[in-house]
């Protein structure tokens, strides 16, 4: 049977956002050595505009959903949701990065190109319908992130962060890939829908031991990427050491994309063997919440505190995954959207107060922020309240729907334990608010100049989105609910 490998224009259009971003990133890399020291700013503008265009292309591509490249990728409501989410995270990251890089005297086009490459990888992850494609997207995103984590190459913390991320990340990828190899061997396919078909086929005598082992290996790889226990160890060190804007990016973009591929693989391919996944997910979700929240209680470094907090949030999303239903998927999607805004927002503030060399990242450095910079303090308060899960913020509905999904799936205990966990979490978020509002600034604190336009824009946009999702959650939730059915 002759196979036509030439993609049709339709297929190319579905893949257009990724192609555009790859092209722009490559052009930036080429132009980088040609531009003078003062000309680096244009790269930020270029990448910003290209991301905006890519978002527009994704929206346009969603008008004509379907598969492309022999079903290697698929454009549906689910992938569009996450494509746009990771691109928005990219936009916000670029906004908070420019000033930071200038302050650290490390402004260069590479940074923006790497962000774009990473986003391309994440877009492939979320739209991949095929295990090898998924692996390529994952690596594309990860390799770019490894470099970004150690971007300030003379900084010891950056080095350490990059090395840890790289070694442990590759280690985890090897496990994931080994699982993929075995799945390929036993089912004969790497396409998610085909795997599902084979697993459902009563005539094919599958070796359940091998399938279990292979899925376990894949679970390990995914759990590592979303920083779920017991594979979360890397996250605090890496998040603490990386440059603040990069941490902001790593804690949302790759995480959202990893959850998206986790969801798709879980719901599409391995739905028939869900009984084997459920105990793993259940245990991991609980352990992740507990470890994240309890470790965060005793942190003094804000970046590290937020790292543990992001582990805890991964635990909540794992609860939604455990529910294994459309409403669970929708809840996870909504949660990731709200988490993206509130977390980037919080990191935008951290980036701002850290100042040159990231000297001010201890909790005490927030003392009296309400008097030194009332607007910034108010913004951080919104993000922290949302992370706590107070009503009228996005975080509340995120948690609300996740626990609702858990109860619907008859996982009462997990829901109750999750709620207790979120009560614990209130403590460390409130501690930051207390320090900001109820402690006087010490006299030796250096003057905080007004935040740059980029940081301001990112903060306001993130705060607006956080509040919007908290007041009008149904807009996003309806969409998420509709797209959840695509990955079944």
């Amino acid at each position: 049977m002759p196979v036509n490998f030439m993609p049709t224009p339709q297929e190319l259009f579905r893949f257009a956002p990724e192609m555009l971003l790859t092209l722009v990133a490559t052009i930036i890399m080429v132009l980088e050595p040609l531009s003078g020291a003062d000309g680096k700013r244009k790269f930020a503008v270029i990448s910003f505009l290209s991301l905006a265009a890519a978002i527009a292309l994704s929206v346009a591509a969603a008008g004509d959903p379907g598969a492309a490249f022999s079903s290697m990728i698929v454009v549906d409501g689910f992938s569009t949701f996450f494509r746009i989410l990771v691109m928005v995270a990219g936009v916000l990251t670029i906004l908070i990065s420019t000033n930071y890089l200038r302050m650290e005297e490390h402004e260069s086009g590479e940074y923006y190109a790497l962000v774009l490459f990473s986003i391309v990888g994440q877009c492939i992850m979320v739209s991949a319908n095929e295990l090898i494609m998924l692996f390529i997207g994952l690596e594309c995103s990860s390799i770019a992130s490894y470099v970004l984590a150690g971007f300030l190459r003379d900084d010891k913390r950056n080095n350490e962060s990059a090395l840890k991320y790289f070694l442990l990340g590759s280690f985890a990828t090897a496990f994931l890939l080994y699982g993929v190899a075995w799945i390929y061997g036993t089912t004969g396919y790497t396409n998610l829908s085909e795997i599902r078909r084979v697993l459902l086929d009563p005539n094919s005598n599958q070796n359940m031991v091998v399938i279990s082992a292979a899925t376990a290996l894949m679970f390990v790889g995914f759990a590592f990427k979303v920083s779920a226990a017991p594979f979360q160890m890397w996250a605090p060190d890496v998040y603490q050491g990386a440059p603040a804007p990069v941490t902001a990016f790593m804690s949302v973009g790759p995480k959202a994309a990893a959850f998206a591929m986790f969801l798709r693989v879980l719901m599409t391919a391995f739905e028939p063997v869900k009984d084997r996944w459920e105990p793993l997910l259940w245990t991991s979700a609980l352990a992740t919440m507990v470890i994240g929240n309890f470790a965060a209680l005793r942190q003094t470094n804000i970046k590290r505190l937020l790292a543990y907090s992001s582990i805890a949030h991964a635990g909540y999303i794992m609860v939604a995954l455990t529910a294994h239903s459309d409403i669970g998927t929708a809840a996870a999607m909504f949660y990731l959207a709200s988490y993206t805004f509130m977390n980037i927002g919080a990191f935008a503030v951290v980036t701002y107060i850290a100042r040159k060399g990231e000297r001010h990242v201890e909790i005490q450095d927030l003392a009296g922020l309400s008097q030194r910079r009332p607007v910034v303090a108010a913004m951080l308060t919104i993000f922290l309240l949302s992370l706590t899960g107070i009503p009228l913020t996005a975080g509340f509905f995120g948690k609300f729907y996740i626990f609702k999904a858990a109860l619907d799936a008859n996982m009462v205990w997990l829901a109750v334990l999750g709620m207790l966990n979120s009560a614990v979490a209130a403590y460390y978020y409130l501690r930051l608010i207390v320090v900001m509002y109820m402690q006087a600034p010490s006299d030796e604190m250096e003057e905080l100049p007004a935040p740059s336009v980029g940081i301001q824009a990112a903060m306001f946009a993130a705060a607006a989105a956080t509040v919007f999702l908290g007041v009008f959650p149904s807009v996003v939730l309806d969409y998420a609910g509709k797209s959840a059915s695509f990955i079944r």
Partner: protein
Amino acid sequence: MPQLPIALPSQVPLSWYLILSVILFVTGAAGFLLRRNIITVFMCIELMLNAVNLTFIAFSHKLKQVDGNVFSFFVMVVAAAEAAVGLAIILTVFKNRSTLEVDEVSSMKL
């Protein structure tokens, strides 16, 4: 799927390849845990990826498909990219700390 007539010695059963790949993978993982030099630790990951490639090719042969071979190429390419980035990171670590002892890189903890 296009099928290719691949001639491998048929008297070697599939399970041997798979057992070898498991041994390679476990050796790699153990090496990752036990070796002290960052470069060696990194090479252990390559070993694990080679175990993956071996599995892909062995299955590809058994299933009489070309896909598995293609996947192993992908894995190799990605491993090469990873090696390029990884060695660069190791290099900067060495430049800043003048050591390749993996336990020396542990300033962030708790």
